[in-house]
């Protein structure tokens, strides 16, 4: 691919685990393994798409990456340095921010839009005079395509797409290097969704941003990502460059996930064969033994219930975790 991208690693996550205690009654509790040992790298200026069904832990992964939850286990390196102490975390949060899914509930209805965007500036004390703060807010609003005259308005006066722009301006306020976008367009209509996606791409070019783009809509993820990681029940089952993943999916789950997306093109839709999975996603409180996908996998065999498949490189830069691929390689 003729891409001039510095292959410098910005974020590296090693064996990240996020478990929650679920209280089942007096002195009884169960571990909910929302994220169970995931590792990934994001290069500078790159977009990593994180896809999966609801409950697979993709949102939790994004949140623990930013230490919005304290991770149960695992290491997070940012620019080669591990984030541990309070000072490091504070510094990390100036370099990494988040855009939330729901533009209706992620903005405080009692604050003006200007104050919402200005809040990160207040927290990190990024200005010396009031004029400077105001100028920065105006600059941010212009950057996301909002009129700076609207800084004194409240969130309810804006439409969904505009509200999401406010959320993005807030994330940009600290001039971050990394933005975790948690389903940023799934609450928007198609025509508005395209506007916001284009803006994400423009901002990335302009400000050299790196995105972790979490979404369940595969068409959107394919469009925006350089690389994609597919999650299932707290684990990454496959990761590859996005075109490679779509053209040559290796893991049975990825395959069925892709064939399940209804194509918005009549000819492709008629030509494609759907692999319809049976059953539902198991509860993360009772993850099946061995491969977590085996209960729904059309190709599951004996070994799948005994042994957890490990993520390994099946072709250059293409990782998947499935026992079937072992046999393939052996042959």
């Amino acid at each position, binding site marked *: 691919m003729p891409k001039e991208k510095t292959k410098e690693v910005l974020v590296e996550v090693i064996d990240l685990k996020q478990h929650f205690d679920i209280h089942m009654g007096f002195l009884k509790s169960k571990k909910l393994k929302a994220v169970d040992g995931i590792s990934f790298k994001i290069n500078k200026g790159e977009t990593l798409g994180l896809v999966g*069904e*609801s409950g697979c832990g993709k949102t939790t992964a994004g949140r623990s990456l930013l230490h919005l939850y304290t991770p149960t286990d695992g290491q997070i390196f940012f620019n080669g340095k591990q984030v541990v102490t309070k000072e490091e975390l504070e510094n990390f949060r100036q370099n990494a921010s988040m855009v939330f899914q729901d533009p209706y509930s992620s903005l405080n209805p009692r604050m003006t839009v200007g104050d919402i965007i200005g809040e990160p500036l207040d927290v990190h004390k990024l200005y010396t005079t009031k004029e400077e703060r105001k100028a920065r807010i105006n600059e941010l609003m212009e950057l996301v395509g909002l009129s700076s005259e609207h800084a004194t308005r409240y969130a309810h006066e804006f*439409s969904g*797409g*505009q509200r999401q722009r406010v959320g993005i301006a807030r994330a940009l306020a600290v001039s971050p290097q990394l933005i975790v976008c948690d389903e940023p367009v799934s609450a928007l*209509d*198609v*025509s*508005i*969704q*395209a*506007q916001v*996606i*284009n803006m994400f*791409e423009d901002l990335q070019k302009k400000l050299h941003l790196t995105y972790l783009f979490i979404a*369940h809509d*595969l*068409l*959107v993820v*394919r*469009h*925006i*990502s*350089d690389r994609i990681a597919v999650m299932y029940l707290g684990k990454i089952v496959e990761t590859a460059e*996005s*075109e490679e993943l*779509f053209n040559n999916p290796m893991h049975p789950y990825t395959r*069925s*996930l892709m*064939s*399940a*997306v*209804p*194509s*918005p*093109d*009549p000819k492709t*839709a008629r030509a494609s064969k*759907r692999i*319809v*999975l*049976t059953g*539902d*996603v198991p509860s993360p409180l009772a993850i099946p033994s061995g491969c977590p996908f085996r209960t729904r996998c059309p190709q599951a065999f004996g070994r799948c219930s005994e042994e957890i498949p490990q993520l390994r490189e099946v072709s250059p830069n293409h990782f998947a975790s499935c026992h079937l691929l072992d046999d393939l390689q052996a042959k």
Partner: protein
Amino acid sequence: MSLLEVRDLRTSFFTHSGEVKAVDGISFNVEKGKVLGIVGESGSGKSVTAYSIMQILSYPGKIVSGSIKLNGVELVGADKNTLRDIRGRKISIIFQDPMTSLNPVFTIGNQLMEAIRLHTSRNKTEAFDRAVEMIKLVGINEPEKRMKQYPHELSGGMRQRIMIAMALACEPDILIADEPTTALDVTIQAQILELMQKLQKEMGMAIIMVTHDLGVIVTMCDEVVVMYAGKACEKGTVDEIFYDPKHEYTKGLLKSIPYGSKALGRLIPIDGSPVDMLNMPQGCAFAPRCSKAMKICLKEKCEEIVLNNSRTSACWLNIKEAIDKNEIQPVNEFVPEDDLSLADGGAR
């Protein structure tokens, strides 16, 4: 005669801030055994159209005018008994959110049997058997056990299956599906769509599929109505709409969905924001966002133009094209030459 004929249906919500014309003159036919898709963005009036057919609009919504005929029987203004006879038995509906459309304090069996006993003459044991049969039909295992379970014990996909079972228990002629898979994951969505296709073939009913997802439309439908701001901007078969869109809104909508990789370039969004239904523009509702808006678009609404027997489109550009091709002669007072020039940057 079509199974269902909707003519010039107008439904408004009379709010404190004024009348919101949620559905503003829409007409379509539903043929026996066919799937009609109604697609549009939020607020375009697609769900209100569905609710109007069932006449389950909540206050302050009201059907203002128009006609809805099922097998030739007028439903608008019909008395309670006629409607009761039709709802559930002739026309059924599945709602978007399977989490909230089942009653949490009654068992699945209780709710299924209620629907069956209300609409048919089956007694309790017969209704029980029918309910079990329906649960089996929609692909849920251990039906007898499910009958005793409460909605919270089932997953989202299973609840939506129960809703489908309930809707189909009385073998309706028409099933209205209002965003039946929006709240579900893609793999579950594929299951539900496949189930609906299978049941539709087996039972030969017609489906009205209300959705915002163009992919779902392609998978399920024979014909499509594209709605914008309470009006049908375009009607046609799936292939006509997707490969030869005639209305600028449909064209914009199709361009704004991501089809493939990053390498294919930027998306082409529709500029601007959705219309404010309280302050509808004087002319075409889409004109303020349309890149090809002409002066007449800002002045006057375009009526639906019949292009061929399956297609209509409500766009002044279709008339302009016809004039340009000398297919029709411009009538001076109808479309002055000046009005067919591009408006100065539209209303933007």
